């Protein structure tokens, strides 16, 4: 039984948006650069509010920025 994981495409989206820096994204979202680094490295799953703010910065739907990968415990849930 493993927990599900939240993956993200923030690094690619930053690159696509004329190589936006982590600091720039952090300032636009209202978190620290360390938190952006942690989110990008899948070391921290942000709150729903921060997730929506990140998606808004990239003008992308939430599902394009974040994806949920189900763990073993979720396998039979659907």
């Amino acid at each position, binding site marked *: 039984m493993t927990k599900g994981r939240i993956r993200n495409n923030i690094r690619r989206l930053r690159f696509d948006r004329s190589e936006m820096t982590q600091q720039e994204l952090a300032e636009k979202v*209202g*978190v620290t650069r360390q938190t952006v680094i*942690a989110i990008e*490295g*899948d070391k*921290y*799953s942000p*709150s729903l509010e921060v997730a929506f703010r990140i998606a808004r910065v990239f003008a992308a739907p939430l599902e394009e920025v974040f994806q949920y990968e189900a763990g073993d415990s979720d396998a039979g849930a659907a």
Partner: protein
Amino acid sequence: MDLSYQEKSILGSLLAMVVVYGYYFASVLRDLGRPEFDGGSIGRLVLAVIAIIVIEIAYQIVLAIESKAEPKDERDILIECKAYRNAYFLLATGAALVIACVIVAALARDAAPTRIIVTPFLTVNLVLLAMVLAELVKFLTQLFYYRRGLR
């Protein structure tokens, strides 16, 4: 190693506590036979508290000048909450142990009057030790989660 502003701040507080209270408890160990928590003991404790405050203020000022101060965000607050949970557990355990020591010593004294082992001096310092250890656990938990991440 690239440390964030919060990590540097915590590391400084941790080192200050280890040095000041390490010195304080080393001197307490030398006076373990002292029965009362008298004027000299209070003075030593007050000195330790003042030393911590002075070192903390000086360090935080230097840190704010050296690195750009960052306000806490939701990740910092979540890590702090987890750290407080661990610290609370240690503090509550420490307090329960001190109470148990006092009760056992009182019962033993009533049953067979011998010399009192758990003196007021020892009791105060055991409570203080639990508080200091809880604070250290808080700092260490924070550093752990900043390094490992919250998954």
